[in-house]
């Protein structure tokens, strides 16, 4: 057996003979198993619930009686964002962003019913998921198991004893690193098994999971290297422990919590009330289709009459009210799209600030990698919002077109007793409307989105490796 293997075996033997270490490791494994099971069950429950609600909303929409298309525009429809299989590993922003939307005419609603908004404040501290355990808890266990790996040898004088057996500094550190690496891998195994179980689910793609697996293993390897570096640089075990706990607290708790707040301060996002007020102001400026003196709609009316060669709207072959609804929706949708684009731009700037903080916290890079690969990051949410808006616009315009072509202007403006009946269109039309079907990002897109985070984690690993090489060189240094 090589000296590296012998040192690794002895380090593991020390951990096994240390009851506290064994108990801590067992607790981590238990916690990971609980996280895997609860997260999986939570994901299944949510997915089932949303699928059920989606079906119920679709059924209710389809079950509408014969009615005026514009009433259907306002009847609206609920849609729900389905969860991908990897959400069981990392739920990402799902609990915060909301997962359902009410689609209606003239409005672009935001997503509602995020778990956090419906739960106690405790939920905001983070859901117990395999990703959370590996990002936050596993590094802490590695710190407790590895902080003294090298410092102990120096403190107790066994460092020189080892060197006297012809063991080089590199062999010593490599052996300690191998032992801690084995522990890290063992700690990650239950979560990786969970990930493999997810792979067997329909819709799960191996490529993002591969990036996810590499990312988490690189992150844990980074912690092993950092722990060994501090243990080799700091003269006493106690100091190494304090330094590593401080490092853990800052990089995995403090910075990831503070960075979004700082980003929010730097690039302020309008809240919903401010947005609604601004949109209402712009809508007023945009014009009123009911006002005959409104310049935009007066021009629209003139252009329409000219196009059809008619003198009055009553002479048009189509329902002018339907055309007005089509034009109004086009204008308001463009306005909503502009506000949404502005909001996304601010969010992108906030995300850039948070991503920049990964220079001092690799946990941020890992979190970004993890959510991107799982499809549960803000991009995934934005994808849902954009698809929802496209669907809403197409649905509303289809109904407006139905009003323009299927309801006569005379009937639409009539107020006699039978007018209401004549304005209605057949209920079969609602059933012919296509249902909303969310198209999640493909495996290649998810994997590509995770690459920047992976690159940062690997960069951290390289830098930490260089620092460990320096610490190893200095170990037991002579004058």
């Amino acid at each position, binding site marked *: 057996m090589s000296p590296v293997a*012998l040192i690794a075996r002895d380090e593991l033997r020390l951990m096994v003979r240390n009851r506290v270490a064994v108990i801590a490791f067992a607790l981590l494994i238990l916690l990971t198993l609980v996280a895997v099971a609860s997260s999986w069950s939570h994901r299944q429950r949510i997915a089932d619930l949303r699928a059920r609600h989606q079906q119920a909303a679709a059924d209710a929409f389809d079950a509408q009686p014969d009615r005026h298309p514009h009433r259907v525009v306002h009847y609206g429809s609920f849609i729900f964002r389905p969860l991908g299989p990897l959400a069981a590993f990392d739920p990402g922003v799902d609990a915060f962003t909301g997962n359902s939307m009410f689609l209606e005419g003239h409005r672009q609603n935001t997503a509602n019913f995020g778990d956090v908004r419906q739960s106690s404040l405790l939920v905001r501290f983070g859901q117990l998921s395999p990703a959370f355990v590996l990002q936050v808890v596993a590094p802490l266990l590695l710190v407790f198991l590895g902080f003294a790996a090298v410092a102990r040898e120096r403190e107790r004088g066994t460092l*020189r004893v080892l060197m006297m*057996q012809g063991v080089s500094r590199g062999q010593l550190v490599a052996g300690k690193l191998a032992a801690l690496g084995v522990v890290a891998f063992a700690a990650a195994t239950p979560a990786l098994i969970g990930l493999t179980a997810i792979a067997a689910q329909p819709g799960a793609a191996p490529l993002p999971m591969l990036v996810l697996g590499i990312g988490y293993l690189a992150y844990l390897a980074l912690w092993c290297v950092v722990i060994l570096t501090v243990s080799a640089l700091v003269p006493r075990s106690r100091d190494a422990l304090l330094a590593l706990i401080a490092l853990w607290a800052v990089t995995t708790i403090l910075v990831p919590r503070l960075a979004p707040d700082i980003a929010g301060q730097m690039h302020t996002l309008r809240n919903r009330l401010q947005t609604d007020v601004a949109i209402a102001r712009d809508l007023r400026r945009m014009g009123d289709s009911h006002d005959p003196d409104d310049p935009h709609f007066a021009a629209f009316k003139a252009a329409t009459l000219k196009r059809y060669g008619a003198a009055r709207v009553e002479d048009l072959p189509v329902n002018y009210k339907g055309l007005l609804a089509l034009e109004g929706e086009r204008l308001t949708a463009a306005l909503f799209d502009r506000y949404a684009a502005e909001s996304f731009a601010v969010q992108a700037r906030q995300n850039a600030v948070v991503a920049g903080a990964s220079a001092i916290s690799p946990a941020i890079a890992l979190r970004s990698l993890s959510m991107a690969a799982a499809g549960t990051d803000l991009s995934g949410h934005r994808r849902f919002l954009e698809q929802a808006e496209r669907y809403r616009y197409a649905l509303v315009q289809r109904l407006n077109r139905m009003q323009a072509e299927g309801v006569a202007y005379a009937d639409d403006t009539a107020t006699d007793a039978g007018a209401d009946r004549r304005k209605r269109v057949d209920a079969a039309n609602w059933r012919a409307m296509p249902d909303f079907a969310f198209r999640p990002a493909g495996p290649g897109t998810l994997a590509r989105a995770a690459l920047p985070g992976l690159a940062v984690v690997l960069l951290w690993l390289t830098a930490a490796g260089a620092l460990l090489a320096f610490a190893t060189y200095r170990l037991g240094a002579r004058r």
Partner: protein
Amino acid sequence: MQTIPDPPISIQSLTLSYGRAPVLDGLTLQVPAGSITALLGGNGAGKSTTLAALLGFERADGGTIAVCGIDPGSDPDAARRQMAYLPENVALYDHLSAIENADYLLALSGERHDRAAIAGALAAAGLQDQAWDRRLGGFSKGMRQKVAIAVALLRAVPVLLLDEPTSGLDPRATADFNALLLAVRARGTAVLMVTHDLLSAADVADRIAFLERGRVAHEVAADGPDRFDVRALHARFQIGGERRAA
């Protein structure tokens, strides 16, 4: 087969200082194969620094130093493979038993010995068999020293360095240790022993070198014309001969 240069320990005009304070100042010392040299001196004379330089933990400012022809300053790992070292305060692993400690350290140095051989060395070092499989957590300083002695004995190296080897041992254990040392010498090992114990040195050493201000001030050989006159040596150097001198 590797040819060991003789003397295996060779120090010529060695100088070494801590900052501006010289610790070794032209030290010259040779330890031939199959011999025991005791290095005595007062506090600050440079004994421990000499050992540290031989072990490659301190780099000399001038002169030459060689262990089996290897400069420990430039290639400490290679030099250490030629040496066994028994420090004054033995550092071993508390989570391992005596047998496991020996097995681990010997395996690291590339030597494999079966349990019987290790047990034999532990017995030869004077450790009782009930203690062989006990973890070192509850061992006394003397018991730990015996484990370290067993490891040093089992390592078939041409050079053995000892730092105050009998400081934790009772008189009987000291006598046993000295007997072991003679056995080691008999198999051709060059032994350099740093000690304050002039009596013990006189019992086993072939030569005694007295260090003063970083250089050998006086050197006597057991078979030389002035032989070991402990009373006279103590009177001259005021080192460690109190019991017999009194």
